[in-house]
C-alpha cells in the first residue's frame, strides 16, 4: 500500500513544497477585496443562481417520479418478475457509475448548451441516486401487508400500491428531499461544462481571472445553499 502510494504520488506530481509556495503566490491578491456592488447586482449572480435552483427543482421532481416504479422493479420484494429485476439493477448500476458531470457534458453535446441540458443530466443523476436509496428501503420494509394483499388475491400493481407504498412513502419523501439537496450542490458546478446555472458565471469570471468576483459569488451561493439545506434537513427530521 505504501509502495502504491509512492508510485501514485510520483504520477500525480506530488510536490510538498507547493504547500508553502501556494501561500506566497501573487494570485492570492486577486481574491481581495470582494466587489460587493458587482456581486449584489441582481443580474450578475442572483439571476443565474435562480436558474440553478430551477434546474435542481425540476430534475428532482422528474427524477424522483421516475424512480418510484423503477425502485419497485429493483427490489426483490416488489419486482413483477425476475428479468425486470435483473435488467433494471444492471442498467441502474451502470448509470450510477457515470459521474454527474459526465452526464452533463453528454447532454450538452446532445441537446445544446444551456440549462435544458443540465436539467436532463440532473434528472438522470437523481433517478440513479433515488432508485438506489429507495429500492434499499423497500428491500428492508415489512413484507407483511404486501403478503396479505397477495394472499387476498390482489394483482401485482394494486398489491404493491396498497401493501407496500404506504409503508415506505415517508422514506420516499425524505430521500427525495435529500436528492434535492444533492442536486442543489451539483447544479452549482454544472455550468462549468456548459450546462447552465451559476457555474456559467464562475467559468466566465475565471477566464478573466476575476477571482475577487468568484469569491463574492461563492459567499452568496453558500449562504443561500446553507439556508435551503437547513430547511430541507429540518423537514426530513420530521418525516422519519
Amino acid at each position, binding site marked *: 500500500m505504501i509502495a502504491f502510494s509512492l508510485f501514485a504520488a510520483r504520477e500525480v506530481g506530488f510536490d510538498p513544497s507547493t504547500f508553502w509556495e501556494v501561500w506566497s503566490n501573487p494570485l492570492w491578491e486577486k481574491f481581495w477585496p470582494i466587489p460587493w456592488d458587482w456581486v449584489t447586482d441582481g443580474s450578475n449572480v442572483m439571476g443565474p443562481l435562480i*436558474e440553478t435552483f430551477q434546474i435542481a427543482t425540476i430534475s428532482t421532481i422528474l427524477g424522483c417520479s421516475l424512480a418510484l416504479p423503477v425502485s419497485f422493479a429493483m427490489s426483490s420484494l416488489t419486482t413483477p418478475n425476475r428479468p425486470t429485476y435483473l435488467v433494471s439493477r444492471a442498467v441502474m448500476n451502470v448509470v450510477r457509475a457515470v459521474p454527474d458531470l459526465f452526464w452533463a457534458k453528454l447532454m450538452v*453535446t446532445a441537446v445544446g448548451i444551456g440549462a435544458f441540458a443540465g436539467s436532463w443530466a440532473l434528472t438522470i443523476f437523481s433517478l440513479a441516486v433515488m432508485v438506489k436509496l429507495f429500492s434499499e428501503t423497500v428491500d428492508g420494509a415489512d413484507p407483511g401487508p404486501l403478503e396479505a394483499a397477495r394472499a387476498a388475491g390482489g394483482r401485482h400493481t394494486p398489491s404493491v400500491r396498497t401493501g407496500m407504498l404506504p409503508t415506505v412513502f415517508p422514506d420516499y419523501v425524505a430521500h427525495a428531499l435529500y436528492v434535492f439537496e444533492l442536486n442543489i450542490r451539483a447544479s452549482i458546478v454544472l455550468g462549468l461544462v456548459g450546462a447552465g446555472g451559476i457555474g456559467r458565471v*464562475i467559468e466566465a469570471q475565471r477566464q478573466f481571472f476575476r477571482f475577487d468576483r468568484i469569491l463574492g459569488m461563492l459567499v452568496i451561493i453558500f449562504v443561500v445553499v446553507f439556508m435551503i439545506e437547513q430547511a430541507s434537513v429540518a423537514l426530513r427530521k420530521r418525516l422519519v
Partner: protein
Amino acid sequence: MTATTQRPTPPRGARERRGALAVVLVVAMVWSLSGLEVTLDRLLGAPGDAWAILRQMVPPAFARVYERGAVGKVFESVYIAWIGTVIGAVLSLPLAFMAAHNVAPVWIRVPIRQFFNAIRAVPELILAVILIPITGLGPWAGTLAIGIHSIGTLGKWATESIESIDSGPIEAVESTGGRWVSSMRWAVFPQVMSTISSYWLFRFEINVRASAVLGMIGAGGVGSELVSHLVFRDFPAASAVLVFTIAVVLTIDTASAAVRRRIIRGGVGRPDEPSRSGEALADLTGIRL
C-alpha cells in the same frame, strides 16, 4: 354492540395535506420550467437527439482510444483519488482528535469543527478552479482539490466515530496517570481505527468519481479525454472512454465495498445488519446523516 356499526374515521387532514403537496409540486414544476427556455419541440426533440448520439456511440472505438492512452488517463484519475485520499486522511486524523467533544476542550473543538464545515461547503470543482492558476494545469491541482475537500468529510466522520466510543478505556489510562497523548493512543485509537480506515476507503471510492470529473476542467485524469472527444463529436471514442471509466469505477467500488465490509464486520456476516438504506445513502454520496 353499537361500536361495530361505527366506521373508523380517516386521520384528520390527510386529504388536505395531499392536496397541498400536489399544489406545491405543480407550482415548483411550472416555476422551474419557466426559467429553462423549454419549448415543446425542444422537449420532444431531446430524446431523439440523445438517441442519435447513442447510436453513433456503438460500437465504441476501443483500439483507437487505447492507443491514445485513455487507459493511462483512467488510472491517472485513480492515482489522483488515492493521493487525495491520503492527504485528506493524514491531515484529518489529528484534527479529528481535537474536534471530538469527549476528548478535546471546547476552545479548540469549535474552531476545528467550523473549519471542517467550511471545507465541506466548497465543492471539489470550485476548489480546482481556484487552484489551477496557482499550481498550473495538471493532476496536482486535482489532487490538492480532492485532498482539501477530503479533509472536511473525513474529519467529520472521524470526529463522529471518536465521539461514539466507550469511555472506559480512557478512564483506565487516566487512572494509571497517562497523559492526553497516551490516552488517545492507547484508549481511543484502537477503538476507532477500524471504522476510520473504512471511511478512508469509502472516501477513496467517492474520490475516484470526483477525480474523473475534475479532468473536465483540466485538473488531470480521464475527464479531459471525454471532453475532447465530445467536443470533436467523436462519439465512438467518447463511448470507449466512458466504458473504460465505468469499468474501473465499478471494479473499485466493488472491491472497496468488500474490504470495508470485512474491516467492519471482521469477516463474519452478522444477522443483525445495520439499516440498509442508511448504509446505502452513505455508500453513495459520502454524506452520513
